[in-house]
């Protein structure tokens, strides 16, 4: 679906219209549980934004409020400059790719894709043209007369995508659309979907609990936890500059080290002292902090590095394919995970005494919870 075609141009009309989305103080309460807690979010037109967070953090609920299936208990939703919060789903300029695809089982693939156009009473010949173009984008033209039940999960997902895109929505909402696909197919679809989104210029709001998926596709990522936003930022930002301990722990493979502040540029941990380049604003001499260091930033060596480091015993080595992972246990019992690309790896064996070191600028320091 990455090939530029006249079909793309037909559907990309949507890019002319503004597809910005503003969420202002959106709150949703189910019984006694707050599923979404006062969320503010500005999504730019044509942006690919991901809602990322663990299961149950309110991603689906937030998406359903944008689509109109749930009504927020407080707050406003503005799409393309117009408040839609009181509009029923069928009057909102957004379309959804559902997690379960929700294809109509009694209709063929082409009838499924035509459904939205028929509701808008688009002339029959135009319907045929647009359905054909949209199925072409999804590479599903040859399946037009099949019933959804005869398709594989990946094919159903493409149909669901075509069925949403054929309506030329300003905003496309996607709720974990890849979760039912196997790994290889998922990675292919991630690339295709990203390219398609760029071509069409439609705003994508993409829900996922998979950080790798969010990072590989998005312009910006919204990290959520228990109904509230933890960080909104570019993929680099949330990866390299996590705003807090939760984001740091959720994205990438992080090591956490409890320590206390010593002076303005050093931390004292149970296993030694190491330098830091920045401290949280509230940190004073002796205050308890948590330092976070990504596994890829940790370097394991047999010799004590010049700048010092933490000494430990190499407890395990595992080959991950694109990386080698070391597990180092220090004398205080702290477990450090380090990852190196196979070509950079030193010849080490389990049981060896090793040193873990890192660049001070890679270390993030958070106030202890």
């Amino acid at each position: 679906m990455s090939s530029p075609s006249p079909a793309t141009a037909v559907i990309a009309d949507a890019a002319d219209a503004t597809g910005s989305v503003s969420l202002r103080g959106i709150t949703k309460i189910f019984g006694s549980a707050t599923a979404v807690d006062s969320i503010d979010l500005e999504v730019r037109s044509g942006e690919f934004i991901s809602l990322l967070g663990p299961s149950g953090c309110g991603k689906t609920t937030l998406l359903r409020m944008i689509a109109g299936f749930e009504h927020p208990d407080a707050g406003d939703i503005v799409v393309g400059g117009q408040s839609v919060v009181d509009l029923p789903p069928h009057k909102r300029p957004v379309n959804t790719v559902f997690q379960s695809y929700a294809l109509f089982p009694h209709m063929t693939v082409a009838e499924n894709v035509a459904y939205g156009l028929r509701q808008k009473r688009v002339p029959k010949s135009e319907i045929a043209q647009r359905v054909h173009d949209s199925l072409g984008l999804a590479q599903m033209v040859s399946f037009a007369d099949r019933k959804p039940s005869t398709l594989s999960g990946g094919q159903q997902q493409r149909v669901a995508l075509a069925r949403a895109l054929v309506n030329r929505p300003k905003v496309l909402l996607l709720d974990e659309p890849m979760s039912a696909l196997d790994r290889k197919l998922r990675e292919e679809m991630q690339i295709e979907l990203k390219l398609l989104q760029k071509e069409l210029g439609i705003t994508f709001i993409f829900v996922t609990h998979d950080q790798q998926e969010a990072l590989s596709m998005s312009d910006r990522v919204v990290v959520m936890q228990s109904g509230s936003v933890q960080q909104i930022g570019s993929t680099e930002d949330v990866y390299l500059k996590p705003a807090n301990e939760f984001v740091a722990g959720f994205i990438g493979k992080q090591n956490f080290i409890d320590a206390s502040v010593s002076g303005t540029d050093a931390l004292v941990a149970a296993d030694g002292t190491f330098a830091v380049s920045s401290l949280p604003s509230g940190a004073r001499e002796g205050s308890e902090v948590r330092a976070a260091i990504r596994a890829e930033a940790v370097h394991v060596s047999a010799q004590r590095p010049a700048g010092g480091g933490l000494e430990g015993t190499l407890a395990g080595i595992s080959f991950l394919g694109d990386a080698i992972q070391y597990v180092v246990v220090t004398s205080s019992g702290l477990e450090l995970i380090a990852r190196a690309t196979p070509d950079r790896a030193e010849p080490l064996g389990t049981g060896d005494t090793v040193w873990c070191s890192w660049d001070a600028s890679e270390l993030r320091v958070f106030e202890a919870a």
Partner: protein
Amino acid sequence: MTTDAAPPTTAPRSTPRARRRRGITGYEALGFPTWAYVVFFFVVPLGLVLWYSFGYKPDLFNAHANDVLSLDRYVEALDATFIGTFWNTLRIGVVGTLICLAISVPFAYWLAVKLNPKWRPLALALVLVPFWTNFLVRTLGWQIILSPRGFVSDALQNLGIIDGRLDVLYTAGAVQLGVVYNYLPLMILPLYVAIDRAGPALREASADLGANRWRTLWNVTLPLAAPGIASGCLLVFIPLMGDYITASVLGGAQGNMIGQLVASQFNTAQNWALGSAMAVLLMLFIAGAVAIFGGIALIVRAFVRRARRVDLDVELPGGAS
């Protein structure tokens, strides 16, 4: 021999040979109730009725004889009364089924979609409550309600809604009301199950694609509930066509339904041969009616599908399908 050394008493039953034999016949044994039921309560009685219908009533004291076989009872059965009553019955059956459908679609939808799931078991129980009472007693209850001197009649007169007494009992209208009341749950339940099983996701997808609730109902909810609608219509229409209790209790002497004619041949006239011929005709007529309505439904479905069809091959430059 001490007690603790005694072999378990069940040992002979589980010898390898016995187990193997049971393995071979196991499925047939499990199926026994089903085919026994079908044979003894359906095939045999139906065969007897068919057999009797070719016989005759020999004298005043015998209900049937089969020493001379003929189709004369069928000729005898197909008189003007029978035909007229059949049309009456068909009208009550079709109208009754349609009324049940018209009530059940919104009600089952409400039950499956709108009602708080917490109250659903209670609502379903209330739908079924009438079934806890005998069919005849329930129908007699309507006799009291519709009676010209009953409380409903009095109340309506006091409210000034009708002048004079309520004049519904012992009319075709009362029978119509009675059958709708008696068979309504048989329509509600399969419809409820069908709508409930379709789940909310497809209705949401429909709304997401721009369909308002009526179009969602027409394009998604009802087509998916079609098997439930079909089974509900069959469950209501077939027993309703053969019902004679409702008509006897509420239709009175006007004898509106064909089941009564059959019953009176068996019970009053003691002419089993003629009664059997009428019963066979009734079954054939019901089967014919079901076939005709089924055919109409298929035609409607074909039209709906044609209206929905998307033909991608039409005048597409370089159409790849």
